[in-house]
């Protein structure tokens, strides 16, 4: 019985993790745009529909991998590098100027932030912004997600997202890992 339940739970998780929503219904996209931010525009609450859908932009493999492509296509690399930062802040070091919540990252991308972060709200659709936000959060995650994307077909500068690069950097341990090196499997 327990085994059946476990199989069922895994199955449902599997469904959600692999589903590919290629185009959102316009009403859902509108609802997803209505986040409730705190007055200082840091932290807040996503719309209810986000939870009804099952946090699709944090746990769904397709959305995360689309986020990774958007990260390259919209030039995020030119300031944030591969996540280690450049003229913009890095995501791997455990510091989030506006907090690690999805809504804060969503707001940063949609509306921009002071000191150089432009607003992308008029260049990307709502679900693209959510996909990108989910990916950016994954770069800095301390736990490797099974749904996270793997390496790209290019020069390797840090461990891939599914190997939790932020955790490796943050966890000095007896033998700290240099960001250029991958972890041992």
């Amino acid at each position, binding site marked *: 019985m327990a085994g059946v339940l476990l199989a069922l739970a895994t199955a449902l998780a599997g*469904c959600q993790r692999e589903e590919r929503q290629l185009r959102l219904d316009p009403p859902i996209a509108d609802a997803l745009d209505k986040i409730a931010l705190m007055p200082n525009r840091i932290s807040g609450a996503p719309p209810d529909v986000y939870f009804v859908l099952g946090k699709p932009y944090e746990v769904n493999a*397709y959305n995360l991998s689309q986020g990774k492509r958007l990260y390259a296509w919209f030039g995020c690399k030119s300031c944030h590098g591969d996540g280690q930062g450049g003229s913009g802040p890095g995501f791997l070091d455990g510091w989030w100027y506006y907090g690690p919540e999805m809504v804060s990252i969503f707001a940063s991308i949609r509306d921009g932030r002071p000191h150089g972060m432009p607003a992308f709200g008029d260049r990307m659709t709502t679900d693209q912004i959510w996909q990108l936000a989910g990916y950016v959060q994954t770069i800095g995650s301390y736990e490797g997600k099974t*749904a996270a994307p793997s*390496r790209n077909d290019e020069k390797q500068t840090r461990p*891939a997202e599914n190997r939790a690069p932020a955790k490796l950097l943050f966890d000095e341990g007896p033998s700290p890992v240099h960001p250029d090196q991958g972890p041992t*499997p």
Partner: protein
Amino acid sequence: MNRPATTTGMRDIDIARTKLTGALAETWTTPSGFWGALATVDHKIIGRRYIFTAFVFLALGGVLAALMRIQLAQPEARLLGPDRYNQIFTMHGANMMFLFAVPVMEAVAVYLVPLMVGTRNIAFPRLNAFSYWIYLAGGMLLWTAFALDMGPDVGWFAYVPLSGPQYGAGKRADIWAQMITFTELSALAVAVELVVTIFKQRAPGMTLDRIPVFVWAMLVTSFLVIMAMPAIMIASTSLILDRLVGTHFYNPAEGGDVLLWQHLFWFFGHPEVYIIFLPAAGMVSTMIEPFARRPAFGYLGLVMALIATGILSFGLWVHHMFVAGLPRLGDSFFTASSMAIAIPAGIQIFCWIATLWDGRPVFKTPLLFIIGFIVTFVIGGLTGVMVASVPFDTQVHDTYFVVAHFHYVLIGGAVFPLLGTIHYWFPKLTGRMMSETLGRWSFWLIFIGFNATFFPMHILGLEGMPRRIYTYQPDLPWHGLNLFISLSAVILIAGFLLFFVNVIRSARSGEVAPDNPWDAPTLEWATTSPPPSYNFAMIPVVGSLHPLWSERDTLPVADGLRTDRRELIVTTLATAEPQARDASPQNSIWPLWAAIATTIMLIWSIFSPWAVVWGSIPVAVALIGWFWPKGTPEDES
């Protein structure tokens, strides 16, 4: 085997015939009940399971094909979206190649080869049980994943970079790669068993030139499996490593190579075609004899053609990669070798035609399928020679012309003989005959339906319709032919449904079959239908290529085998002279545990590399249980 009894123990010469069969049955029979069924190592029970499972996968793959045909029947259809369509064509191809075509050929061999060479069980019977469980687990992995929207969507050959870490999101490509590992593991296990069975367990007197052609075909096929499958196992393992751990086998930026995938895949993938076709050719050569009422024409030519095809099949994998960009010499070499393989195929075709020409053919259902095979396979072979030419291939690559070509060679070359095989050996599998009327109806429906479905695809391809598209626009000139193809597919499906109805009805209430209903010449017809658990009460002694024709009344037998333990005769490789009495393993539940442990390790390793470390512990425990010493001598010379 008239040697003095060197050890104690009951021998078959010591007791009367009636008591003999009782004693053998007690030693060999699989105990009834749940655990008995799970622990059995009887090649007949496992072979039947294998065949049944493979046909279930055929039916499931057919459902996918039907879905694709409904979707493509009209332009801009809305039944399937692009994502689901990608999964469906990938599942259709992977399922038909890895879960149906290869396993079903090996399954038929698992059942028939020990009977045809006159022995009591396959070599390494526990490995045989293990291979079935692994095959079942691999099939369930693929189909469960598909049901969960996790089905692979990268084509049945999963080219990188599409299937690689950058573009293959989620675990879909990993499911494909690991399913490959399962099916290759089971295929390799069966191949090793068959080689040893054919080399060392042939009945006394069955010299190399007295081996039935189907057994020869399985020998060559098994060597192809042993040499081709490691390439794909390396490929699929390194793909999973790239995707999970971040290795760079297929990453050109870090010194990897994208084309490496295509070479590794097709170095396996092309011999794979012959792994499917050679058993079918062997089945035809063996089945044609009782229906032509004469020995197959050109035994030596048929066997040499099988071996030549096997060797040549490793020299033409690059013709799948003509559009990848090759040096001129490569183009010419692989064009020449691709055309050269038509020679051994042609030799076989002419031998079969000569056999029918000179014989007095009896047109029963199996022979109808053989003739259907010759017609469709020749058409498929001719388009094969066409696409072997680089300029032509460049034109039709990735179009429906190629779809038409490979369905002609695979369905024409393998499924037609296989359906004939089921009709022919059904009495040996179940003890009952299949209905001749239903058989004829299903043959004509399948033959007409198949040609009406797939022939127009040649034209569609020449008109430029690409493969793997989920829909097309109404202003393209393809919708008339597509609708015709989809309607013809209904006839084809009706033929297959009728075949399945025939199988189920005949298995339940068919006419009870005598030992040798077709008056066939090979050894499997020398025992009852279906055979007893010990196959033969006395091991036959073979004096010719057609033992049941040359010695119709009394087949000489060997004696001296013990009846109180599982024993079979080991013979020399070339001349099949008796060498030893070898013990054949008892039933064991350990192969099942080993298969479950291996399954857990392999599936877990899609998600975490640590699975290989921790998952290998249960595998080791299961293998220790499996090989625990029994303290009895293995064989007596």
